[in-house]
């Protein structure tokens, strides 16, 4: 399709995007959250084992197209910015599909002094305003037990493997993976739980999926990650944390990620020392990243992200 120059995004969707961006800005303006811009070309990438940064050669070093503006925004927070938000392009290498594109629009915001529950309430208010939806809040444990019948915090990986077999969920892609607890939880969650999540905020993730969230203890006494995700129509829309600020723990998690990267022959990423200093010196806060394009998909009632991002397929492999 070499002459496929026109956008797959129709005019009505262009208008809806315009309105969505305006509504989001109005929402934050009303709350005196400052809009900021930080470089999309960063000095380091994330170390998350499952996120791949696109890199740009800059003479002696590499620039990292940001998978989210998290690191730079935390440098602003540490410097006393107060509540801030940003809407910007974010990039993730190798992500193509009905709900993924390598470049997408992310809305990320931070609220110093907010607990995770405060921020979940704010996400709820935003959703009420934009989509007239009031999402239900439920723990990862409850929703996992409801649909899978076992505890995500207590079940050993062997039980997760067995459950996948019983429910005829293929797991060929995990056959050579060491340390696959988190992967099996993801597989089961995506196949058995996620399709049921019409408008739900899932809170308190398994500790093995903490990323940059603080640990906490749930009512049954298990260690959980103080992290939440918003789902609409079975699609993950937003991911938020009670932000980790313990410098040693942050370094430990990054180094651990890099060790796994090395084991799996993935590129090891330079540690973002600037961001480490910022993260360990910022005030307690909660932050969340929301996929604007997926929210727009919900508003337009479409199931393909290429129907809401202009020229998304320009970079897709094997399509032209």
């Amino acid at each position: 399709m070499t002459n496929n120059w026109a956008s797959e995004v129709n005019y009505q969707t262009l208008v809806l995007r315009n309105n969505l961006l305006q509504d989001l800005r109005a929402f934050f303006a009303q709350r005196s959250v400052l809009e900021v811009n930080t470089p999309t070309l960063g000095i380091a990438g994330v170390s998350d084992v499952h996120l791949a940064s696109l890199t740009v050669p800059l003479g002696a070093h590499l620039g990292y197209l940001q998978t989210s503006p998290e690191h730079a925004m935390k440098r602003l927070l540490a410097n006393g910015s107060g509540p801030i938000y940003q809407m910007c392009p974010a990039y993730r290498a190798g992500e193509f599909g009905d709900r993924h594109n390598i470049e997408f629009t992310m809305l990320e915001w931070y609220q110093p002094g907010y607990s995770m529950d405060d921020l979940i309430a704010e996400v709820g208010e935003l959703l009420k305003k934009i989509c007239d939806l009031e999402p239900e809040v439920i723990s990862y444990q409850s929703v996992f037990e409801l649909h899978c019948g076992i505890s995500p915090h207590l079940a050993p990986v062997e039980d997760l493997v067995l459950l996948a077999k019983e429910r005829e969920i293929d797991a060929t892609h995990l056959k050579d993976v060491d340390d696959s607890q988190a992967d099996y939880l993801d597989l089961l969650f995506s196949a058995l739980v996620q399709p049921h999540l019409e408008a739900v905020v899932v809170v308190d993730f398994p500790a093995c999926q903490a990323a940059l969230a603080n640990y906490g203890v749930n009512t049954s006494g298990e260690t959980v990650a103080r992290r939440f995700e918003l789902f609409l129509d079975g699609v993950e829309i937003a991911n938020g944390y009670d932000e980790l600020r313990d410098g040693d723990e942050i370094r430990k998690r990054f180094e651990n990620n890099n060790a796994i990267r090395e084991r799996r022959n993935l590129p090891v990423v330079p540690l973002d020392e600037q961001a480490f200093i910022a993260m360990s010196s910022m005030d307690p806060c909660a932050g969340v990243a929301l996929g604007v394009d997926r929210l727009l998909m919900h508003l337009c009632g479409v199931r393909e992200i290429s129907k809401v991002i202009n020229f998304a397929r320009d970079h897709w492999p094997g399509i032209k």
Partner: protein
Amino acid sequence: MATYSTNEFKSGLKVILEGDPCNIVENEFVKPGKGQAFNRVKLKNLKTGRVWERTFKSGESIEAADVMEFDMEYLYTDGEYWHFMKTDGSYDQLGADKSSVEECIPWLKETDRYVVTLWNESPIAVSPPNFVELEVSETDPGLKGDTAQGGSKPATLSTGAVVKVPLFINVGEVIRVDTRTGEYQNRVKN
């Protein structure tokens, strides 16, 4: 050896899985929030017709299958092979063995067109059109006064296929059958 990476996967792509040629029916890229990306893929085994659901690590490659499909006209069988002819004007002929044609045998009628799937240039599957029109060769006599409503009875068709037909159908009549379900559709005026 040609290969396809998961990010080239799309429906209609022909690949080799466990030694058998398969057609990708559905491909979904799954990337849990902070988790490992994978592709959840439905593949139809072109030899057995079975549909498999498999997950692939994103970025993994699998072997491409040299599979082609042709519109071909059914000519005849010599008992060992079923002979077909291309309809592209080349008049090329080929013989398909029993294992590749077996499921299609009840629907094979001379001069009708079928899709013949070739893997490494040998036929591995023959698929009938969704609807075929076949003559009834054997059934209980039709009951007078029966209309389109009411019970059914078995009828043997010219190809040997047995389908349930309404009571008013008689030997010698031509009926339309859905080959996907093996169900009677309607009587064809001839």
